[in-house]
């Protein structure tokens, strides 16, 4: 979230990343293409011509590869956290705590060891 805000994404844009369909007009066309692709790629849905075509309207092959690998990297890190229950460092926690636009899920109740 911190990087999202630092990148200039509004709280409203951050809060609706999980919506499917996306709110009409909230995201610029290139942004909407990225969000829809990232949702589908993460869910391992088929990347149909419409989803890919929307990306290709705004991005070249190299950029689509970057988007694909960025989504993949995020998925990799997500799995790392799910496996090792990595705790959010205090610096990030403090900055995020007052207002995270997205509800925080419960940390899995597993015991360690």
């Amino acid at each position: 979230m911190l990087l999202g805000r630092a990148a200039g994404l509004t709280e409203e844009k951050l809060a609706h990343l999980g919506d499917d369909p996306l709110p009409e007009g909230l995201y610029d066309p290139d942004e909407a293409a990225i969000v829809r692709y990232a949702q589908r790629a993460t869910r391992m849905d088929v990347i149909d011509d419409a989803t890919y075509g929307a990306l290709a309207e705004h991005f070249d092959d190299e950029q689509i590869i970057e988007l694909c690998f960025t989504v993949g990297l995020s998925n990799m890190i997500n799995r790392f956290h799910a496996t090792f229950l990595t705790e959010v460092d205090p610096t990030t926690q403090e900055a995020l705590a007052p207002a995270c636009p997205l509800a925080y899920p419960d940390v899995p109740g597993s015991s360690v060891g």
Partner: protein
Amino acid sequence: MGRLPLVDPGDEGADPLAREVLDRVTGTRGRSVAPNVYRAAANHPRALDAMVRFGTVVYFDNTMSPAQRELAYLTASLTNDCHY
């Protein structure tokens, strides 16, 4: 409670490669302390090194705008319900 010890780059006894990569991360990301994901992954220094190099090419230093870059990363994390 995480399942991995967090490597401290200031720890003289820590693996030299792990320390070097963690210092590189804090240096390039403008942070005082490397985020915990790096310090946890530092338990496998060569994997951390490769991850940081790959992430730098395809994500941190890619050709997208910051907003485009973060939309891709954040949407994936949210879709996986991962709020690290």
